[in-house]
């Protein structure tokens, strides 16, 4: 199984990812989350602008998907906390997101995500979060350096 197949299977398997219509592209082990625009994603119909909660949800899923690619887990990573900064209103066009894994420990991963639309240099939102991991080998030997050793 390649990471590409895994990623497609992941997005197909998560009902909520299908509900918002999330897709992804993969270059090496670097994933870009893609959220094609759809009417039901609007929060403010006047401007119109994407729902703020949805942008957060998209970035959270991007973080979980990227973690699953780089650090294969026995179970899906669980969100412990997230902090979202909203920088611009989300226009009714496609949105993209990329996650940067800042640290993977034995139990917790720290991830940062940025979402953008027309230009990556003008992000519309940023997320910082901690995720609880369930490694494949729960009974790792004490000398194992946490999740880092399994990095593919």
């Amino acid at each position, binding site marked *: 199984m390649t990471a590409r197949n895994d990623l497609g299977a992941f997005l197909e398997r998560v009902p909520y990812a299908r*509900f918002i219509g999330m897709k992804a592209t993969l270059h090496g082990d670097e994933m870009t989350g893609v959220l094609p625009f759809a009417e039901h994603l609007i929060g403010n119909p006047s401007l119109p602008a994407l729902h703020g909660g949805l942008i957060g949800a998209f970035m959270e*899923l991007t973080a979980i998907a990227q973690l699953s690619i780089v650090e294969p887990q026995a179970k899906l990573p669980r969100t412990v906390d*997230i*902090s979202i900064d909203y920088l611009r209103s989300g226009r009714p066009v496609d949105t993209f997101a990329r996650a940067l894994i800042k640290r993977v420990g034995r139990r917790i991963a720290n991830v940062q995500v940025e979402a953008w639309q027309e230009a990556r240099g003008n992000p519309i939102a940023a997320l910082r979060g901690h995720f609880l991991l369930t490694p494949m080998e729960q009974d790792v030997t004490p000398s194992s350096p946490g999740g880092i050793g399994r990095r593919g």
Partner: protein
Amino acid sequence: MTKVEPPGVPVTTSPMARALGMVNVSGPPDIVVRIPYRDDLVGDPDTGVIAGGVVTTLLDHTSARAVAAKLTEATSIATLDLRIDYMRPAKPGLDICATAYCYKVTRSVAFVRALAYDVDPSDPVASAQGAFMLDSNAGRGAGANLQPAKRSRRKALP
């Protein structure tokens, strides 16, 4: 413009809220919004637990409603900052409710705390702390976001 629907009425102003099946349970003053459990909102198919993103969207929406209820005039509201702690997974099969309290409004920003729960508010699924921008449309008329995005105000090179 933010319109507040009466209790018991599905939220209709926002397509995202409508798609999630949000219902206003009560308020103002005590704002409670509910999302009935649905299979297509699940985040982990192995457990049937509702997606974190659904809880995030519910907390964001309920918080904005609490801000709208606190204001004397209808105005546009946009999330500036939202921090969420997930205490435990929601129980599969149960509806998710959220309650929010806007404890401070300044000229430009409103501050809110919110809780999400399935059965008992004293055993929450998640908690949120948010800041919301008031009059976020700021003179931009209806359809302003349909225009191409403005370039950022970076100085052009000479």
